[in-house]
């Protein structure tokens, strides 16, 4: 179970670190642009909402369902704020290899989780949530926030990081409880 969950985490981390290095699309050392950062952050939210909807469709555990509902509510709130902001700033989020890699990895995770049921699903979902938030938080902290130019975008990402750190801790706590 743990072995399985580490692999996708490494992939997510690799995808996000590629953004840090500006590879493979841009030259090495080139930081992501604000339109790319907005796209990555929004995509990361969409992915977590989709994972939560899968959990709400599959899990019968009240605690897991409560957590999934929290993920839908919180990530939708951040993404609504993100859409409002890009509209206000007249920025068009730019698709990029990091967003594409995240989406590809998320689809693989979704398939893997779809094959599980009951307690095995609950455990895998929570483990994935803890690992996914950890990877996203690392990217926000090390790359996306330092690289963002616009003050309002930076501020929203910082708020997002506080929220997602709480999500990570919550997921880790619930995952430990379920063992």
């Amino acid at each position, binding site marked *: 179970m743990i072995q399985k969950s580490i692999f996708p985490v490494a992939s997510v981390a690799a995808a996000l670190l590629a953004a840090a290095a500006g590879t493979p699309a841009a030259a090495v050392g080139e930081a992501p642009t604000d339109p790319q950062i907005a796209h990555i952050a929004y995509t990361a939210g969409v992915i977590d909402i989709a994972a939560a909807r899968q959990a709400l469709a599959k899990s019968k555990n009240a605690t897991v369902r409560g957590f999934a509902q*929290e993920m839908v*509510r*919180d990530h939708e*709130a*951040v993404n*609504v*704020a993100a859409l409002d902001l890009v509209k206000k700033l007249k920025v068009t989020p730019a698709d990029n290899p990091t967003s594409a890699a995240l989406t590809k990895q998320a689809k693989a995770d979704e398939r893997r989780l779809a094959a599980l049921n009951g307690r095995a699903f609950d455990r895998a979902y929570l483990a994935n949530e803890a690992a996914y938030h950890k990877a996203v938080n690392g990217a926000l902290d090390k790359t996306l926030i330092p690289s963002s130019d616009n003050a309002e975008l930076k501020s929203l990402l910082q*708020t997002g990081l*506080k*929220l997602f*750190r*709480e999500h990570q*801790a*919550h997921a880790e*706590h619930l995952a430990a409880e379920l063992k």
Partner: protein
Amino acid sequence: MRAALLLPIAALLLAGPVAAAPRTHVVVIDQMRFGPVPQGVRAGDTIRWINRDIFRHTATARNGSFSIDLAPRAQGRTVVAKAGKIPFYCKYHPGMTAVLGVAK
């Protein structure tokens, strides 16, 4: 006649200081944190909770003495009935915790 009028007033004065009227205190929730918790809260006082976040939160006493669910950017009130040190948290974000001290 005059004595009859004064008597109730004297009785009031002799009864000693009247208990302080309940007060309202404010706790602001912002950036995934409970702001500074007010000092000098007494049983019977009201807490006005102001949620400045874009996220839904609760302020829930671990001893069950109060719980309020706050929509994003909403506010609400709870009355603190009991004295004591009351730890509270957000049910949705359990990492958000604080302690409210309530005097009798």
